[in-house]
């Protein structure tokens, strides 16, 4: 954890000590002095607290780094305005620990928003708990379509891109620009993978492409070399790989070794430093991401520099999501002038809340599924050595010169339109 509680993890079964409860506290003018319970309850728009609940993992730490930077920036701005802003970070992984963390952050620390969603389990627990306690939940990572559809909730908003957005970005570029029209899908045999497959197939076929095969890979499958050969036999010009973690890494190793005649792409949960200079694993394929340290336009250089100065690391997608989630939480209160979760949700889904993610366009949330509209980037291995390993090849959606549609309409090219989304929240009256 940042600022003095490094490496501490709060096991679910252990009593919550004061130190763990506070976690990382970032405040105006430095670390906030710990205050008594009575004062903690007196949260107003002048003194704002946001919670961060992530597991004690590399993923959790990556989100926390970004959130910490966002909180430090919000705290500095708050100080200019004569106010305070704090981020209270807690490590929790399973449902019981997450629910307990939410309860105590709300009751004892007076947080009005919580950032998390490092994995499907914590996403589900946070979404439920946020709804129960009436606080905003900003999902920084979970893209799983099944989990999201199940937790289509008023207080849950997604900073993390959806699987549908990643898929649309890939289809727009790989079919429309790179001419890869014959796709073979490789994924696990899970409901989520099936949902992604069906959505990707629709995106592909809508652009004139063709699904030439689907290969389901069991968790225990060892012979991924055979999968590579099977894809070749389909005549595909591109393999869409929806595998996570170790399975994905092993598949790409076999792909890299075989050097087959098809390209590789796919989606996977954003991972720490995945497309950085020091990333491990085979450097092959074209992949979508929310952020990359090589971005430079629209103030991206300045943001990447601030992150690097703070942590000595390249800013990755999880860092960006954590940073942006805090920014949304801070700015939403400034503009909506409330800390009430439902009122904040109403403001954010109204379209009046547009934010600067250093992506060059006003970013806003879709009212029907609470998904953040945002550009995505495609990265691939850099052409030469010494170029940081990966390079950004495209920003999606593509916008033709002279195209003058409103930003939200352009950004709605990525992801589920209102008519096709399974999450359709009714507008608040």
């Amino acid at each position, binding site marked *: 954890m940042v600022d003095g509680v490094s490496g501490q993890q709060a096991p679910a079964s252990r009593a919550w000590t004061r130190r763990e409860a506070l976690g990382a506290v970032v405040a105006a003018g430095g670390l906030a002095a710990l205050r008594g319970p009575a004062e903690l309850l007196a949260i107003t728009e002048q003194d704002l607290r946001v919670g961060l609940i992530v597991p004690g993992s590399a993923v959790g730490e990556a989100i926390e780094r970004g959130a910490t930077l966002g909180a430090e920036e919000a705290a500095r701005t708050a100080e200019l*305005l004569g106010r305070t802003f704090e981020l209270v970070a807690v490590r929790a992984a399973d449902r019981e620990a997450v629910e307990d963390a939410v309860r105590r952050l709300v009751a004892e620390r007076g947080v009005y928003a919580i950032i998390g969603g490092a994995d499907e389990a914590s996403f589900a627990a946070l979404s439920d708990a946020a709804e129960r306690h009436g606080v905003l939940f900003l999902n920084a990572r979970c893209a799983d379509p099944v989990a999201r559809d199940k937790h289509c909730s008023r207080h849950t908003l997604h900073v993390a891109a959806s699987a549908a957005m990643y898929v649309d970005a890939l289809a727009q570029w790989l079919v429309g620009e790179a001419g890869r029209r014959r796709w073979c899908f490789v994924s696990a045999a899970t409901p989520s993978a099936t949902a992604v497959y069906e959505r990707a197939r629709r995106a592909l076929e809508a652009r004139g492409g063709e699904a030439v095969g689907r290969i389901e890979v069991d968790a225990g499958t060892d012979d991924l070399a055979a999968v590579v050969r099977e894809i070749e036999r389909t005549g595909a010009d591109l393999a869409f790989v929806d595998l996570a973690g170790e399975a994905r890494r092993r598949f790409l190793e076999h792909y890299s070794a075989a050097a087959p005649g098809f390209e590789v792409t796919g989606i996977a949960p954003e991972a720490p430093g995945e497309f950085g200079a020091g990333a491990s694993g085979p450097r092959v394929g074209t992949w979508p991401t929310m952020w990359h340290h090589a971005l430079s336009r629209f*103030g991206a250089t300045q943001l990447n520099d601030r992150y690097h100065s703070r942590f000595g690391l390249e800013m990755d997608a999880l860092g960006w999501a954590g940073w942006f989630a805090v920014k949304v939480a801070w700015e939403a209160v400034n503009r909506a002038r409330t800390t009430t979760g439902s009122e904040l949700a109403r403001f954010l889904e109204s379209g009046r809340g*547009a934010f600067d993610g250093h992506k060059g366009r006003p970013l806003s949330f879709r009212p029907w599924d609470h998904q953040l509209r945002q550009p995505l980037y495609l990265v691939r291995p850099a052409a030469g050595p010494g170029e940081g390993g990966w390079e950004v090849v495209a920003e999606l959606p593509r916008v033709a010169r002279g195209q003058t549609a409103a930003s939200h309409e352009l950004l709605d090219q990525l992801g589920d339109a209102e008519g096709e989304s399974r999450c359709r929240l009714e507008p608040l009256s």
Partner: protein
Amino acid sequence: MKGSRYWRLWIGLALAGVLPPPANVSAQNAPLAYVSNERSGTVTIINTATDKVVGTIEVGPGPRGIQVSPDGKRVYVALSDLAREVETDADAIAEIDVASGKITRRIRAGSDPEQFAVSPDGLKLFASNEDAGTASIIALDAEEVIATLTVGIEPEGVAISPDGRWVYVTAETSNTVSVIDTHANRVVASFLVDVRPRAAAFSPDGKRAYVTSEISGTVSVVDTETHQVIETILLEDGEAKPVGVVVSPDGKRVYVANGHANSVSVIDAETHKVIATIRVGRRPWGLAITPDGKKLYTANGVSNDVSVIDTSTNRVIATVKVDGEGPWGVAIANPSGGQLTQTR
């Protein structure tokens, strides 16, 4: 000088890294527009009577913000290199003598100076230091930074009130404007504006300030007595990308360069209504207006040109190609001296 003798000298100076002064600037009897070219490290000079390029000055890396001294005799241009978050020798504000077209000195102004304002008495300069998140106050005579003030995150636009009392510093990431009291040399207030504020300009009477917000596509109208936003003007349904802003000398019009929207919005300063939208070159950032208010100049960063607008018709009457890359800011000076208008 004429003929081959002149050109031999010109080439010699160019090879020495010093392009000649504009074609006898002191002989120009019209105000001159100075355009900073960020990517080529030059300043292009345009005669506003003929709208022809009359000279180019090499100034060094990354010229962006550009302003004129109150007496009109000097042009200041902010320079910064690629070494971010550290102050290097390349980070400076260059002073150009209008009469000779030569750089007379380089003034330290903190790291990565981008935009700045010159006090009406010509004694102080206020610069934003984007990477450091500060504003520097520089005594011009002593060439000394006399105060470094913490402002918002990613400070950018700097504007000074006509009476010299207040300096507004916009900050892109924090969406704030910091108010510097120039009597005390400290920040006395900060207030929120819309998303990604880029530039500010005061009305000639000093009662209002106008702050552009690029991501929101808006202009905030500020009451400078209370330092509070009293109205927010939406440009092009929020799809404008407002950056530079300038107020006409009579205070009746506010002109906003809309960056990636490739346009200039004309706002009635009384009603706060947009009365015209003018298509210009690609990515206009800085803009400046002639002292008589008849012509408006936009620095178009992608098309490498300057659009000249007739303010009586709100039409582009000329497009001047600069002999440089990435026009960023523009300021208008008068070789014969006198207070002239400022830029973004």
